[in-house]
């Protein structure tokens, strides 16, 4: 059942006490990820798919490809859209209905990690300039929410894209079941998220840490150590030194995370 606010206030006190002794509840180091598994090809109906488990957090990304028109300001490029759904299936805290503010932010930050790194070679997805292009939809279902959705969703998204086959197009329509090759992927952006609780900064917050956090910082990094997106979350501020330190840790830890792909 959904925990009350009071529960989290008390929980935070005990978390803080442990953290001040350098302890996380599952004995991880402050800059350590939980166990991660990535399984590609979990769906036959999607053009590409992947399931990611990060601790008990479980998400499934599916890629669908259709044909559409390009945006007026990039007539020679395919289009891409990420949509993550906080399914009420996955947590007592998620409500059915219209996407919440949190779901929108999650979708947009995962989207930016992929978009700004130019992970997909969108120029190769142009079929007829200004008129017809491939449209790539990355939909992410949250199955079990146990903290740190941002990193799990970005990992699932990029894994699903790597798994994606590009369907054949004939007479301006997708030919069901026929493919011309793999979706052209240039980069592997990874997101690393830190939670700030008191003055402690923790990589990969689990559910309790995520619920007790006062701020968070998500950094997307490519395999070339290029930072392609950042997003501060929560209301507590960060100092310049804290930001710099998280960036340095993320550059290091993103490599380990990427090795799961």
């Amino acid at each position, binding site marked *: 059942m959904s925990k009350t606010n009071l529960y989290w206030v008390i929980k935070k006190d005990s978390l803080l006490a442990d953290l001040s002794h350098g302890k996380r509840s599952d004995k991880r180091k402050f800059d350590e990820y939980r166990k991660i598994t990535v399984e590609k090809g979990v769906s036959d*109906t999607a053009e590409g798919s992947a399931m990611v488990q990060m601790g008990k957090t479980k998400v499934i990304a*599916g890629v669908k490809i259709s044909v559409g028109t390009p945006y007026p300001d990039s007539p020679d490029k395919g289009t891409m859209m990420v949509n993550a759904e906080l399914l009420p299936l996955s947590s007592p805290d998620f409500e059915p209905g219209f996407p919440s503010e949190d779901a929108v932010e999650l979708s947009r930050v995962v989207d930016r990690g992929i978009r700004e790194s130019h992970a997909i070679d969108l120029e190769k997805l142009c079929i007829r300039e200004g008129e017809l292009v491939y449209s790539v939809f990355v939909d992410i279902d949250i199955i079990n929410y146990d903290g740190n959705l941002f990193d799990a969703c970005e990992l699932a998204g990029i894994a699903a894209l790597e798994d994606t086959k590009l369907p054949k197009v004939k007479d301006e329509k997708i030919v069901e079941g026929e493919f011309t090759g793999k979706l052209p992927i240039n980069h592997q952006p990874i997101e690393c998220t830190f939670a700030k609780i008191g003055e402690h900064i923790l990589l990969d917050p689990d559910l309790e840490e995520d619920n007790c956090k006062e701020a968070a910082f998500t950094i997307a990094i490519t395999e070339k150590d290029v930072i392609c997106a950042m997003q501060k979350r929560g209301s507590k501020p960060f100092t310049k030194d804290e930001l710099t330190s998280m960036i340095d840790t993320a550059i290091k830890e993103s490599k380990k995370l990427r090795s799961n792909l």
Partner: protein
Amino acid sequence: MILGKKNQEKKYVDKGKRLDGRKTDELRQIDIEVGVIDQADGSAFVQWGKNKVYAAVYGPKECLPRHTQNPLKAVLRYKYNMAPFSVSDRIRPGYSRRSVEISKVSRLALEKTLVLEDFPKTAIDVFVEIIQADAGSRAAGITAASVALADAGIPMTGLVSACAVGKAGGHIILDMTKEEEDAPDAIDLPVAYVPETGEFTLVQMDGELQRKDWDELIELAVKGCEMVGEKQRLALKKKYEGEVNE
């Protein structure tokens, strides 16, 4: 899929075997796993042929908004949802008439088997997510949901088992695939059944059914549901015994 005239010549059952090698009264492979979503009070994952379905149960819990409460029993709510990538053409997230109807008939298929009177004023939420869909996703959803409700410890008078029977190419068959459902003469008759009481809690039908085929179809449906029920019980037993062994 475009249905040309050639389809009408397709043999849906040849030498007792269907297109996927099954016998006419044989279910697809069904795997049921209990307790797959640790945040939920009860959950199940069902792979049924190409269908992949998660069900999660939350509750009994506070029923909001208040005016929807029932002072005498728990309110059962059911939400069937398809992942956007669960079928060949992407589904846009949000409202669909089909999902609304399936949610309603599925809820009613389960309601009478639950002892809702034990939890007045509360709500019990069932969420069913179709990750991959083939024919029979509503039956897979109800089957998963009933197991998840048992896993959540909701007292019940019997598990609800669901499956579809129908006809393709003139043959009465159990548990059609999408390809069989697309037969020009296809009948699709999904049912939900409580083996303990021998009663039907869901009956729907599309197609062109002759009266003379009814008795055979409904008998086959009973048989199919009984087989499904067996798998549900085994899955629950497995989790229960697993827990005992740990």
